[in-house]
Structures are given as C-alpha cells and as structure tokens.
C-alpha cells in the first residue's frame, strides 16, 4: 500500500522519537516548570527545566498528544539540553520559521528537528509541532522576570 504522501509528514525519525521518547519524565531538581495545552485538541505537556547561569543543564517533558506533538517535544528537549538560553530561544525561532514553510537559518546544528519540516505542508498540524517549543520559550522568558 503506498504511503508516499504520509511519509513526508511521518518521517521515520519522527516515529522513532514518538515511540521511544527521549527525556521523558519530570525533573525533581528543576527550577522551571511549564504546563501548556492546546485547547483546540486537548494535547498537553509539562516541561521541567533546570537552568543554571543561563544554561539549560537538564530538561524533561511529560504529556499526552499525537505523534507530532510528542516527537517534537522529544526532539526539542534533546536539542536544547546543555545549550545556553540564547541558543535555545534562537532555535525556537528557527523552528517556528521552518514549521511555517519559511526560509530558515541553517548555520546552527538543528539535530533531528529538520525531519519535522514536512509538517508545514499540513497546516492543521503545525500547532501540534509547536506546543513543546512554546512551553520552552515561555519557561525561559519567565525566568527573566
């Protein structure tokens, strides 16, 4: 049975993150906790981060949602762990541009997240992909205040 159309969305690496999520759980010693949900569909995420001197030392997520939202959370946490805050926020901006099908900066190492670029062809699913990233941005900005 041909699945060509679907495989632009559900790339193998995405399904791998969905079925074997990285950084799943809640940090006991985190200093940032963000709960976010997508009210239109019921997906939800809890993101815990440990930030020290402007660096994301550790990060975990737990939640419920579709393959795209959970794979995106897994990829995002893998990518930002160990990075400084500014880089994480820059990656969030790059991700946002990529997911909307815009030109995006490729000078940074994007890890697995480029596999999600196909989501831009499925407008109804863009919000699934951005949930974890919005949580991360909100968490990091809240530390500024």
């Amino acid at each position, binding site marked *: 049975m041909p699945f060509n159309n679907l495989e632009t969305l559900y790339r193998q690496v995405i399904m791998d993150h969905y079925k074997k999520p990285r950084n799943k759980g809640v940090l006991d010693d985190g200093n940032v906790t963000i709960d976010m949900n997508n009210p*239109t569909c019921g997906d939800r995420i809890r993101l815990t981060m440990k930030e020290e001197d402007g660096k994301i030392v550790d990060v975990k997520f737990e939640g419920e949602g579709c*393959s795209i939202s959970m794979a995106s959370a897994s990829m995002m946490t893998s990518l930002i762990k160990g990075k400084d805050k500014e880089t994480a926020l820059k990656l969030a901006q790059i991700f946002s541009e990529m997911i909307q099908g815009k030109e995006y900066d490729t000078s940074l190492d994007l890890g697995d997240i480029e596999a999600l670029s196909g989501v831009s062809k499925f407008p109804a699913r863009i919000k699934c992909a951005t949930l974890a990233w919005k949580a991360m941005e909100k968490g990091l900005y809240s530390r500024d205040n």
Partner: protein
Amino acid sequence: MDVRKIREQFPILNQEVNGHPLVYLDSAATSQKPLSVLKALDSYYTGYNSNVHRGVHTLGTKATDAYEAAREKVRQFINAKSTEEVVFTRGTTTSLNMIAYGYARVFLKPGDEIVISIMEHHSNLIPWQQAAKATGATLKYFPLQSDGTLSMDDVKNTITDKTKIVAITHVSNVLGTINPIKDIARVAHEKGAIVVVDGAQAAPHFPVDVQDLNCDFYALSGHKMLGPTGIGVLYGKKELLEKMEPVEFGGEMIDFVELYDSTWKELPWKFEAGTPIIAGAIGLAEAIDFLHSVGFDYIQKHEQELMAYAFEKLEKIDGLTIYGPKDLTKRSGVITFNLDGVHPHDVATVLDTEGIAIRAGHHCAQPLMKWLKVTATARASFHVYNTMEDIDRLAEGLVKSKEFFTHAF
C-alpha cells in the same frame, strides 16, 4: 428517494480532496448546504437586501415579510405555540448564554441548584458554571451509565426541591446518546424546575416538538441542519420569555426610549437588538423546506442504516473502540471511536490524505473526555447525503491508518 439525487443538491460533495473523491463525515461540526439554501441567500442579496422592521420602502417590506415568514417556518418546525416564542440568535451557544444571563442570573439565589450532565458540550456547561458562580447557586451533574446513557433513577435522585434549572442536551455530540427529554421534563416540573434543552445535534436529524417534549427552553443552530452559519434559534415558553431580561440592548428591541429609562418591544423582538441575521433566517427557512421535502422519515431511516453499517464495519477493525450506546435506537448522528495505539489526530491526518473528513479532538466536551478516560477521540458524523460507500471508505482508511502506524516504521 435516492441518495444520488440528494447529493446532486450538494455540489460541494462532488470534488476531489488530496487526489480522492471527498468523503464528508463531519456534519456534526457543520452540515453541508443544499443549492436551494444557497440560492435563497443569493436571491435575498441580489433581489431584496434591505433592513427589516424599519423604513417604508418596498424592498424593506419584502425583506421583513421574508424574515418573519422564516420565523413562522421555524415555529412550525419545532411546533411552538406562537411566533412570539421563537427568537432568532447567532446559534445554540448564543441561545444558551441568553438563558444563563437573562434568566438564571436574574432569578437564581444562593442555595438554588442547576443540574446538567457530564455529556454536555461546553456551550451547555460553561454558561451554567458561570451563572452558578455569579449567583451562589450550586451546579450538580447527572452521572452517566457505563454505556453513556442517563438512568431515570439518577435523574430522579439528582433533581431536588432546590433545583431550579435542568439543562440537558437532546443528543450528545460525542456519544450520540438520545436523552429522554420528555421524562426528564416531567421529573423536573414535579420539583418546580425548568428544563433547558441543547438541540444542536437533534434538530438536524429527527422531528422536534417542543410542546410534546414540554421543555421550557430549546436551542438550535441553523448550520448543523443544512442552513447557513450565523443563525440559530432560542425557543422559550411565552411566560418565561416575558420574565426573562434582554441580554443585548440597542436598536430594534425598544418600545420607548427616554433619557433615563426605556421600555422593550413585545416578544420576540425584545431579544433581537440591532439588525438581525436576515439572510441567515431566510436561509434557515429554506433548509427547513429542504429537510421536509426529503422527509424526516427518510432521513431517520437512511441515517439508521448508515449507523448500523458503520457499527458493522468498524467493530471488525482490531483495536477499535466505539464510545456511547451500542443500542442503535438510543443514538443518533455520530460515531466516536479510538484506534489502539494511534492518536486520533494522526488518524484524522491519515484519513485526510485519503480525502476523508472526520473530526478529532475533545469535541468541546472535556469533562466527558475525562469520564471516558481519554484526552481525545475521533468522530465520524452523518447526514442525509452520506452513502454506504462513504462508510466503506472510512473503514478502509482506518485499516490503512492502523497499518501505517504499526508496520510502516
């Protein structure tokens, strides 16, 4: 009656989506509209667009006549006693909010009770939550049986002498459950409570007789019953509408306006401030004509056949769970399900690539999702234009979704 003939009246169905002929199974979200409804909107705007109940010119009279004829058409459709009891609104949500604001918040006191059910759509839940908070009344819930129906014993036990309002959906937008409104109304009235019915998922599918149901308020939406978006109805018994306060003030709803006080027009216009939804009402009347020309006998029979066939096909799919009553005489319109190991959004995306439109999510019923112990579900819903082939395509699409998520990686 032939479904192919009916489908000719819905040209939108005759298109390809993602390279496949469209299968539209999302009528519970909004139904498609027949040509006659579209033509009625067009001829109003091209022929006699004018404001109603105002000037004396010819087009204005024509528009007023059509608008008020639509009200009479709705009166007959739900068998209200008079057109005074038929208020045009923006839709079910607006109608229910008007009751919560203009009746509940005005007449409820601390200690009074509002009773609703766990299966309510947010639009028949949040207005009551807010009214309870504002008045100090208590919000209570009818529990559900394991098959997603209400038991009359629970209804009798939940409604007390303190209960002032019982608000209940006629048909659940998730479970498809048809609730025994007439029996609930009898119990409520014995205790002195009024009954508010959310008819959004009922009016499109079977005849509604508000006098027979003996409900006090009934709300419905035009766009779910083959009519345009933006038009709905609030039915209320005359004596209640007379007591009820208007929620919106302004032009058209007044009798006399003085500097520091004003008086309201008689029913139903005291509830229709501003320029009403003229084209919407005219389109809704045309949708009612269409439903009657096909006939509810045919519509009900056809939809029951679709439902029975959908049950037969979907129950064969390994790992598929159907929610709501298995007794098909107790349900209408929707079939909600989950596929083991595949999130409903992913199911909906796979189906969409096959040209099949369903709904996935919480269906504006988060408390019910919690009761079902799921965060989201997939839902296919029917109307008179759906075919047995649509159900075949749905079943094939679901098998494909399952294969894709189980074997493609």
